[in-house]
């Protein structure tokens, strides 16, 4: 038996809808599970992004310093990096704040908005700093494959992952590379 491919998924500034769509490949997850080892994912309890990853799917845009650190680590430790879904590919709704000043956004959400205000230095220590603007992944690292869609439908995800596991470049038809 050949060794299983080491696959990871990462969740940055997005809604996790792409991950949900991945789970929507339903019974085909069983076939996939036989062929891969899920070494890092929001769906698995692994704290540190591991070394020597074959394929990583990265969902979400770059919104804060934590996103950026994790993406750089994922890129360094993975052979194939997939920009997974519209937030990762274009910034999507995550980048709607780009035309606003970051201080205005924080004031609106944490002071003018409902709920309690995170106070004092303890909040600043645990919360990652927002980047001045939200960026797609390829603004920071080289991307091997773009998988647009909000979310990409399960079929596109399966076709892409299947091709990548076979060591091939995914060839998706036009109707499978639409945004939104």
């Amino acid at each position, binding site marked *: 038996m050949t060794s299983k491919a080491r696959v990871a998924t990462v969740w940055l500034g997005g809604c996790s809808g792409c991950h949900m769509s991945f789970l929507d490949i339903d019974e085909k997850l069983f076939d996939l599970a036989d062929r891969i080892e899920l070494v890092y994912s929001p769906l698995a309890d692994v704290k540190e992004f591991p070394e020597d990853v074959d394929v990583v799917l990265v969902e979400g845009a770059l919104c804060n310093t934590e996103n950026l650190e994790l993406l750089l680590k994922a890129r360094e430790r993975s052979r194939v990096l997939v920009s997974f879904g519209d937030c990762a590919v274009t910034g999507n709704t995550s980048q709607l704040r780009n035309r606003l000043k970051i201080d205005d956004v924080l004031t609106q959400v944490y002071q003018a908005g409902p709920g309690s205000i995170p106070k004092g230095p303890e909040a600043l220590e645990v919360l990652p700093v927002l980047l001045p603007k939200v960026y*797609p992944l390829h603004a920071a690292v080289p991307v091997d494959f773009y998988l647009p869609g909000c979310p990409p439908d399960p079929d596109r995800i399966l076709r892409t992952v299947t091709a990548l596991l076979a060591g091939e470049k995914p060839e998706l038809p*036009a109707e499978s590379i*639409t*945004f939104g």
Partner: protein
Amino acid sequence: MSVITVTINGIEGSAPAGATLLEACRQNGVELPTLCHLEGLTPIGACRLCLVQVEGARRLLPACVTEAQEGMIIQTHTEKLVKYRKMTLELLLSERNHICSVCVANGSCELRTLCAQLGVDHSRFEYRCPDLPPIDTSHERNGLDHNRCISCTRCIRACDQVEGAHTLDMEGRGIENRVIIDMHQTWGSSRTCTKCGKCVNVCPTGTLFWKGSTVAEMEKEVGFLQWIRGGREKKTWSYL
């Protein structure tokens, strides 16, 4: 009507004298991508997607506004042209705020469809994320969202050339241009708008929409242009 001979991608074809290169290509089964062009409106060569290479010409020519000449040798899908077309689409994506996932025209958008057809799955250019004028929903039926506009002017031409109202126009130049209503006023206060909806139907993106439509609900119908044109020019009124 006299006929001319042209060579398109190495294959000889014919076209009626006076036809544009775009018409000549399409009549000979060669499809070119277009955004600003719409059969029934005056071509303006704005979007640059239909650029072709003509032997002997020193620059690329927009097929929609170039008249086919006898003996012309045309290339429509060279590596260079395909590269430029993709670049044009990427620049359009990065210029304003095209957020397909929350757009009324997701599904009927010609920009989104062309991106997929030409394999544009991301934009290499940094998004400008401009702060644009607010969405105008003061009109009884229609809405105007500058975030989605690609400045093709199809709405302006339909309003002027087909409806004859000339409610819509353009202000500013380059990336500062904006579609405006009458003398730069809200759509709801316009006294020239006939509420015909032609502008909404010819808009290739989600810029003009029926009020009340939500994500991906817009459907656009441009067949009426041929119907009106047939009636006016050939006096035959049949809606095909």
